[in-house]
């Protein structure tokens, strides 16, 4: 009997509820957990929607993270020769052993212990922003007053990037996160960010401080006996750009979207308010439930690989849907329910395998300070507009809200 191949379809992107992934994922997971995907570059590949398969692919070294060889699900960016050169240090797109070298150099700056040690400084930053909110509001836009500035200031201090320059680099970064960005705008933003970071590396060589970029320049790793650690300016700038971008809108969107989700689930917010110690579990659940890396992550097969009964051919791209995996009923009881008390939350919001998020302990530390402080300061916090008027980030690679107008009783 000949089994007919179902036609390839583009990645589902239309949500019917602001907190749930597009409905199609559910059908696919049940009927066709590995399905044919049509990419904008005209090629076909695969979409994975089961938790088990997503984890398996992300942990499988027969798959490459090289974005330059991959088909991308929503928009195929034009790659210029200078973009190929500029990917030095961009570990998210590199495979072992190259990836391993950078990851080893960076990991010790992002350990649980080091990130916990930032808590007092983050508490100070959070408090400053809450005070400013109290002075100027209500109402206020939580994104501008709280959710974006806090992680932005934290990652700037950690890297040694002048926060005063944020007007420039925040603009470039949000251009690059737009799904519908034109090549022209993307080139301009990419080049501006690249030049900015190269200049900064030059400045740090001349005037070192004790933040991360300067420490990498000083080759602290070499002093500890790690091999081969002298980094070129291109590599340092690549690392700097990746950390600045990855450190910004990720936590920012979790803070704003997480607040919105909790305000729309008052029972869950009440639980959190009554038991502040449960914040760690609540954060893992928000990461799972919201999965801001909304279109998943890509891998390219280096050889033919069997997954879920299908053969992925060498060179084909696989999209691992993190949001579908995080709603898999095989792994999570009542996956559509926000349950801040959920135990053993094996979500893939930070990915899985060797690329699992380097900054996850930083993101957790920021959230475990920011959420409780916000809800404690404003016991009557609520939306200032109808829910339908909250602009969702359907058009951005990282999901969230563009704005969150909030109010409270004085």
């Amino acid at each position, binding site marked *: 009997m000949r089994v007919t191949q179902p036609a390839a379809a583009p990645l589902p992107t239309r949500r019917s509820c602001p907190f749930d992934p597009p409905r199609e994922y559910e059908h696919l997971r049940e009927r066709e957990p590995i399905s044919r995907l049509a990419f904008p570059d005209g090629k076909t590949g695969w979409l994975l929607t089961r938790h088990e398969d997503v984890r398996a692919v992300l942990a499988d070294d027969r798959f490459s993270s090289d974005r330059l060889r991959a088909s991308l699900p929503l928009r195929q960016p034009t790659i210029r020769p200078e973009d190929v050169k500029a990917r030095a240090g961009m570990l998210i797109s590199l495979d072992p052993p190259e990836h391993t070298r950078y*990851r*080893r150099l960076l990991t*010790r700056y992002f350990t*649980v212990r080091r990130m916990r040690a930032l808590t007092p400084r983050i508490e100070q930053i959070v408090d400053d922003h809450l005070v400013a909110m109290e002075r100027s509001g209500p109402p206020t836009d939580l994104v501008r007053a709280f959710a974006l500035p806090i992680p932005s200031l934290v990652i700037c201090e950690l890297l040694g990037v002048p926060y005063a320059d944020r007007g420039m680099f925040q603009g470039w970064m949000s251009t690059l996160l737009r799904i519908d960005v034109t090549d022209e705008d993307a080139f301009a933003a990419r080049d501006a960010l690249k030049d900015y970071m190269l200049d900064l590396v030059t400045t740090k060589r001349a005037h070192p401080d004790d933040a991360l970029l300067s420490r990498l320049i000083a080759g602290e790793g070499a002093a500890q006996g790690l091999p081969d650690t002298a980094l070129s300016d291109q590599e340092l700038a690549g690392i700097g750009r990746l950390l600045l971008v990855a450190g910004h809108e990720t936590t920012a969107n979790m803070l704003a979207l997480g607040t919105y989700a909790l305000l729309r689930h008052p029972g869950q917010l009440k639980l959190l308010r009554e038991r502040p110690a449960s914040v760690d579990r609540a954060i893992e659940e928000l990461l799972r439930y919201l999965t801001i890396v909304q279109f998943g992550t890509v891998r390219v097969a280096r050889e033919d690989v069997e997954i879920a009964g299908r053969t992925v051919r060498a060179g084909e791209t696989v999209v691992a849907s993190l949001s579908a995996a995080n709603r898999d009923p095989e792994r999570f009881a009542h996956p559509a329910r926000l349950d801040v008390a959920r135990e053993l939350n094996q979500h893939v919001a930070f990915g899985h395998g060797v690329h699992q998020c380097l900054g996850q*302990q930083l993101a957790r530390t920021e959230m475990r300070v920011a959420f409780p402080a916000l809800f404690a300061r404003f016991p009557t916090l609520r939306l200032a507009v109808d829910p339908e008027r909250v602009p969702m980030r359907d058009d951005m690679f990282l999901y969230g809200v563009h704005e969150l107008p909030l109010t409270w009783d004085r």
Partner: protein
Amino acid sequence: MRIRIDHDRCRGAGQCALNAPELFDQSDDDGTVVLLDDRPPPELHDSARIAAELCPNAVIRLVEDS
């Protein structure tokens, strides 16, 4: 229960130190896992299992006593 570590696979994601701080730490040199106790007392078996499940790189292996 015994804990075995496949250290070469570790990429320092820190799930172990986060979920079972009594059993795992991360080195200051390169952020990779440091096993604090390879024979955890029974009350820590559950956290050892959680750490092993959550480790993204299958570094932590548990050998249950039979």
